[in-house]
């Protein structure tokens, strides 16, 4: 029902889409996979009218169309679920849904009641668990995403585009999302789905189209295709899917939190009396559903959030109330969870972003001046090493694909031989090749005596990389395991608060 023919889109220096042919059938879940920078998001933005193709045609229901804006796309029944939620926290679900297409009565009076009713109907029709009268600020990430989906449905879309919807979800939420998506498919909706998690892609989709460097490699049915086949199509070579985890003798304690409490919103502490210690040569994984205090915990550790009580030590040195700069100078690197807000200055060039936070190092300065040559040659090296796909290091960071933005941050944080690395969702948005590379880097750093605190919503990743695993629930560390001691199911029980270890039974660093 949607046919793209010969779609080509060029950005300065790159061909993001190179004569792409794609056919999406009515009522199917069609997955789009490919390496970082392969052109998936660009193609979807074209379909949603955010970009204009340089060449090629689009047909919807057999009619050739020109989609010059999202408005036109919606009129054609094509809607996109934004990856970065655009919701107003203080509004209710219903208010957010109708925002921009408010049903106004006489004299422009907002018909709140009707709106709520309509949203409630939609939720019922598609089996979405959502209260239209709830304030969005009280919702979990998964629920907010549901609001975004309802928003698109409310505008009458028959085709839904979801660009990496699962990147921000925990496993349970992914399952719920998939239930919802199947329900939508049953009702005749068409779904285009982008993800780097091949297991998910194989599970949910009917057909899969693989892109590589802006071109279509092929479209295959999900049934009968294996993960490694798909990976090979994407990367163009076989990919190792398992990583070795050799034993490393842990050294001194590098990072220690003693009983720390961190303020949250509305008086209730976001982190409550958490203690943990990470040794050199150790990866400590924190598993937990997002929003259970991990963000605040990390911000407290790196000096971005005040600590109410307790102590933080780096290498035995107290840094409880130190500034972010001081903590960084002590050799603590941080891959922040929110790469757009914390990790990058999007309008600044890539070469400037690669040294952000390290720009004051002597090697990059020439007196008070930035030694542009030194920074650029450093940036070139990182681009090479981390395989960052870009046309030039002079482009602003916002022109990079999501995965390549993440690589810029990872490259920066790994570069200055930190003693401690605090990595929140380090592989979010990365393709399998890049994920493998980053995980390998983490293990290598561990072998070289770095202490790593890994915060990830991806249980598989936590389990495969960590030497010890702590589970955070509701701002507290409710359980701690050694490697191999816990199964994903067990962790899940702790993560959802169904179970907790009583205080003192945690494993101390060996």
């Amino acid at each position: 029902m949607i046919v793209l023919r010969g779609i080509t889109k060029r950005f300065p220096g790159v061909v993001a889409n190179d004569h792409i042919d794609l056919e999406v059938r009515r009522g199917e879940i069609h997955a789009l996979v490919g390496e970082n920078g392969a052109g998936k998001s660009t193609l979807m933005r074209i379909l949603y009218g955010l970009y204009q193709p340089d060449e090629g045609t689009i047909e919807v229901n057999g009619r050739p169309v020109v989609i010059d804006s999202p408005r036109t796309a919606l009129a054609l029944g094509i809607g996109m679920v934004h990856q970065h939620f655009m919701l107003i926290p203080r509004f209710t679900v219903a208010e957010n849904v109708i925002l921009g297409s408010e049903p106004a009565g006489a004299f422009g009076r907002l018909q709140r009641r009707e709106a709520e009713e309509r949203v409630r109907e939609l939720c019922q029709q598609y089996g979405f668990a959502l209260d239209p009268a709830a304030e969005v600020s009280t919702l979990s990430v998964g629920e907010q995403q549901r609001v975004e989906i309802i928003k698109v449905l409310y505008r009458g879309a028959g085709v839904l585009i979801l660009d990496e919807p699962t990147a921000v979800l925990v496993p349970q939420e992914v399952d719920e999302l998939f239930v919802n998506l199947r329900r939508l498919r049953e009702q005749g909706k068409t779904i285009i789905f982008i993800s780097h998690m091949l297991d998910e892609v194989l599970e949910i989709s009917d057909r899969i189209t693989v892109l590589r460097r802006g071109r279509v490699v092929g479209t295959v049915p999900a049934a009968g295709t294996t993960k490694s086949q798909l990976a090979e199509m994407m990367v163009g070579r076989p990919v190792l899917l398992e990583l070795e985890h050799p034993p490393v003798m842990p050294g001194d304690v590098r990072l220690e939190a003693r009983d720390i409490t961190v303020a949250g919103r509305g008086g209730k502490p976001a982190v409550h009396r958490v203690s943990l210690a990470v040794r050199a040569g150790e990866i400590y994984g924190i598993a937990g559903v997002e929003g259970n205090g991990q963000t605040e915990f990390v911000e407290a550790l790196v000096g971005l959030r005040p600590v109410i009580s307790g102590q933080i030590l780096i290498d035995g040195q107290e840094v409880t109330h130190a500034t972010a700069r001081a903590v960084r100078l002590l050799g603590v690197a941080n891959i922040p969870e929110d790469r757009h807000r914390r990790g990058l200055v999007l309008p600044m060039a890539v070469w400037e972003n690669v040294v952000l936070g390290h720009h004051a190092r002597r090697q990059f300065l020439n007196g008070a001046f930035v030694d542009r040559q030194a920074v650029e040659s450093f940036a070139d090296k990182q681009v090479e090493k981390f395989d960052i796909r870009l046309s030039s290091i002079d482009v602003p960071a916002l022109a990079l694909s999501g995965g390549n933005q993440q690589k810029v941050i990872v490259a920066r944080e790994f570069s200055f031989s930190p003693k401690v690395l605090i990595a929140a969702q380090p592989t979010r948005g990365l393709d399998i090749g890049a994920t493998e590379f980053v995980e390998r880097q983490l293990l290598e750093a561990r072998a070289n005596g770095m202490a790593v605190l890994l915060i990830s919503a991806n249980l598989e990743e936590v389990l495969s990389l960590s030497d010890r695993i702590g589970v955070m629930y509701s701002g507290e560390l409710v359980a701690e395991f050694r490697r191999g001691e816990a199964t994903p199911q067990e962790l899940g029980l702790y993560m959802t608060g169904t179970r907790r270890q009583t205080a003192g039974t945690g494993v101390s660093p060996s």
Partner: protein
Amino acid sequence: MKWRLFALQFATPLLAILFGVLIASIIVLAIGQNPLDVFGVLIRFGLLRSDSLLSILFKATPLIFAGLAVALSFRAALWNIGVEGQFYIGAFTAAYIGFTLKGLPIFIHLPLTILAAAAGGMAWALIPIVLKLRRGAHEVITTIMMNYIAAALILYLIADVFRDPSQVGTPRVRTPEFPPSARVPSMGPLLELFGLTGPDANKVNWLLPFGLVLCVVFAIVLSRTRFGYEVRAVAFSPLAAEAAGIPNARIQFLMFMLSGAVAGLVGLNDVLGFFGYLDIDFPKGLGFLGISVALLAKNNPLGVILAALLFGFLDRGAQGVQFFARTPKEVIVILQALIILAIVVAYELMTRYVRKQRKREAERPPPAATVAAEAGR
């Protein structure tokens, strides 16, 4: 192909001005006059007479400082609407140091006077920025309030506290005169060597080159130094800057203080360079004009110079138009505003167009050799 784009980029400001002229012509027609006459006078009077050139330079000087002051704050994502008030206070502190200190040589007295002006501007900028960084009060509101206070305070100081006693009983309300050691020397003698003479030759003073140097220095600081890098990071993304260990508050504080210091210098052109005393009727509104100058210059310190010159020209030309073309003064003010507005709009459209052309250029299929190299990567 490259040169065409280059030429286009170069022509952008000119085309923008042309567009401004076009819009203004419509207004002139509407009031029943011949645009050719009006613009003829504007050009002939405003550009082709050497005394007009001098007048333009004199008028542009304070606007350079005002535009730079505003641009500095805008560059740090701060809205210093208080340049007006800061310049009043700066003018007063300069005058105070000017008439109270006596018997000093010029190379001590004059720098002290200029420093006093900068300090005055900074002092007036201090309250809004501290309120913002400590209490979150928005600087647009507080600086506007400070403008009112400055306006009233300066009248009080000139009229009631520091009024020149020798003038009491006359209608002149002003501070005592400064000794020559506190005055900025005129560039008249130098300009004369270049054949530029006229009644305004002595008005043009060494604050002009000082302002130009200041603009160049800030252009370099903002684009090339570590400090400039941090300013950009803070302005674009305070959260990312914070995470990178860049002290947001300190950077914003410094930039606002610099803005205030430069703002303090705005009044010197008239006070130290021309009158030699601070009159209650000293020129006002320069701080607000600075906002327009900065906008026109896109907050670029070098652009500020050009924008200030353009404002100076329009101002000078307007005098001629009023006199020779017998156009009402109000219409001229409207024309000035329209021309500026049209330039801003046209400039924006033109840069967009150039950018698009650029992109098209870049998208041209690259030569075969690079394609092969790409494929082999």
